[in-house]
């Protein structure tokens, strides 16, 4: 291979790769802002379904179950919603804006991860003020089809209603106050219950009820903002 051949091949490769790179960069520049906005909207919608009665769900902190990034949120319900007219600073037009008066904390939503049979199970848990589970939802998992993927079915998710840290325990067979395991999927059931949901609720309880005063202060701050 002569030096000329080498140069030819190199230039050939560079030209095609640069063209390909430019096309990808252009599409990424166009698509990425939309991608991020849509992903954020979807997350907000998922949170709203967890606490349909809340008027506002705000992130109040971060934690790292299994070294994964997760957040927890406070749900607030307005004592009263007042419409007021506000002048838009840019256009100068008057428009209606909702004002939340006397917001009250009605519970929390926490995102958690449980280590399952073949994947990390990503879970959202909604709890009330007393840290009793109201609702859970499976966001993402890759458990065995036909066995472990039963965890996303309603009949299993319903078993979590009204559970507390003490009753979030998996039992094989009938149980009155604990969580009954899915037959053939004990590992996945346990991952959701004892690793995901229980740890999430426990973390919330430790962080929030321990620092009651601190939390009060934070709420006052929120109040003054809105």
């Amino acid at each position: 291979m002569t030096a000329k051949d080498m140069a030819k091949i190199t230039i050939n490769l560079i030209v095609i790769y640069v063209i390909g790179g430019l096309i990808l960069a252009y599409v990424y520049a166009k698509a990425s802002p939309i991608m991020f906005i849509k992903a954020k909207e979807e997350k907000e919608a998922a949170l709203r379904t967890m606490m349909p009665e809340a008027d506002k769900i705000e992130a109040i902190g971060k934690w790292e179950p299994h070294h994964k990034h997760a957040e927890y949120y406070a749900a607030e319900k307005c004592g009263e919603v007042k419409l007021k007219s506000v002048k838009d600073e840019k256009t100068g037009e008057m428009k209606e804006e909702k004002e939340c008066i006397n917001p009250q904390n009605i519970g929390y939503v926490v995102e958690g991860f449980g280590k399952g049979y073949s994947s990390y199970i990503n879970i959202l848990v909604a709890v009330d003020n007393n840290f009793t589970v109201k609702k859970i939802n499976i966001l993402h998992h890759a458990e065995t089809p036909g066995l472990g993927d039963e965890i996303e079915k309603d009949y299993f998710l319903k078993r979590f209603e009204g559970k507390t840290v003490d009753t979030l325990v998996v039992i094989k067979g009938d149980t009155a106050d604990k969580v009954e395991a899915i037959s053939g999927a004990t590992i996945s059931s346990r991952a959701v219950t004892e690793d995901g949901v229980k740890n999430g609720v426990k973390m919330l309880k430790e962080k929030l009820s321990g620092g009651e005063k601190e939390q009060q202060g934070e709420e006052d701050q929120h109040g003054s903002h809105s």
Partner: protein
Amino acid sequence: MAHTHKSNWELIKNGMFSENTIFRMAISLCPSIAVTNSLKNGFFMGVSVIFVQTMVNLTVSLIRNFINPKIRIPIFMMVIAGYVSLIDMSMAAFARPIYKQIGLYIQLIVAFASIFARAEVFAVKNKIIPSVADGLGMGIGFFLAMIIISFFRELLGKGALWGFPIVSGNPLLIMILPAGGFFAVGLLMGFFNWVDAKLAERKAAQETTEKLAA
């Protein structure tokens, strides 16, 4: 294979049947086991492959005169990876509901032997229209194979089709586990070979009777 002399329709049929990616060439067997545990998965995987295969064949054929034969492999990689990223990003932004269904599969296509093989064996040596026909045929062939495999696996393994329960009772759970994928692909491949052998036998018998008659 040098320039092809087949008509476009023959090329499409070739990809669908006589050179079917999975049942005849036995390449890209990985997705045929990994994502055929439900009809829905198989369907969306097949659709994604039809699209990517056709586009890659089109592009490779389009730039075939600029490709130095010594570096054709890295260039095919670039084209395939480029298309996969393009589709992935634009779907994530503009077709969110579809993206949620097939986003996972689109990313898998980067590593498909069948797409690479068609670029190397066919598109880089042929004009644009036959290349598109070949890509389409190969894509449809793959699609049909995925549908057939996933149909049997979901029906036997879950007693359902497209997520809707059809048969009640205890299904053969092993069929939707990876081991069942090997069973399904092997048995179906055997079945098609058997059909082929029977057809050839019948043809041979017909020919001898014709000869005897003459």
